[in-house]
């Protein structure tokens, strides 16, 4: 388990860096259409920002920032957004994951609808990857032994 050392420089630097990393994660996600990037890369960055906080402080602080239940909901939400988008396309009458069907509910043509569908599923990937990275890290770092720290 990671114990807190109370080093003022590391802690404030980590706290200072975190929003920038998160902003960059969102940049990588939303610019994924026009530049290298996308959901997975953004998700790893987003997860890394939380992991940085946990390393600089400790697991208890990390748990305070992103609670267990919230993390669990996020875990499932990402895949749900992805497959839900696919299911929506299916309900709208197309094949599974055929985003051009989204044109029926969005004020755009089928090609733009595909672009927006891509964005939607990338957001889903980002949420899941970020949440799972944090979740796996916390599970491995605490080794399941310090349950009280995870409450």
């Amino acid at each position, binding site marked *: 388990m990671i114990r807190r050392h109370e080093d003022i420089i590391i802690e404030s630097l980590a706290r200072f860096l975190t929003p920038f990393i998160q902003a960059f994660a969102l940049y990588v996600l939303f610019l994924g259409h026009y530049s290298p990037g996308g959901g997975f890369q953004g998700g790893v960055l987003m997860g890394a920002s939380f992991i940085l906080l946990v390393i600089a402080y400790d697991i208890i602080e990390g748990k305070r920032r992103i609670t267990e239940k919230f993390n669990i909901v996020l875990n499932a939400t990402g895949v749900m957004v992805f497959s839900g988008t696919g299911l929506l396309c299916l309900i709208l009458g197309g094949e599974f994951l055929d985003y051009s069907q989204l044109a029926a509910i969005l004020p755009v043509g089928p090609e733009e609808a595909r672009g927006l569908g891509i964005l939607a599923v990338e957001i889903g990937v980002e949420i899941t*990857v970020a949440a799972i990275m944090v979740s*796996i890290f916390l599970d491995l770092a605490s080794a399941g032994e310090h349950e009280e720290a995870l409450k």
Partner: protein
Amino acid sequence: MDFIIAKYNYWIYIILMMIGFYAMIVKNNLAKKVVGMNIFQTALILLFISTGVKTGGATVPIVIGDAHGHAIPGTLHAIDYINPLPHVLMLTAIVVMVATFGVALALLIMIFKRYKTIEEDEILEIRRKEAFT
């Protein structure tokens, strides 16, 4: 010579892969096996990525277009951009690799809690002793 220049990159990936494979099947320390697994998969990713390369001025697979980034239809030619498909496949493979790695580490923690060691021969020794008692 041309033959070597044209193929040596594959050979390097194969040698890397075999280093990982050797670690996976021979190493006694379970953590080293997991590391070997990672080397194997990473080398495999390199092998795949190398199939997407095109020499002769091809660039990254992002359209160089107008102010909005979009291209005029009909101006794009396959020869100008490298093949995007291996990159896509390997993004998926990287995630699979990370997932396997996470599960393997979780199992290692369970094994260490149970036997207090991650050396395979010591674990087998413990199992043999426990089977008798």
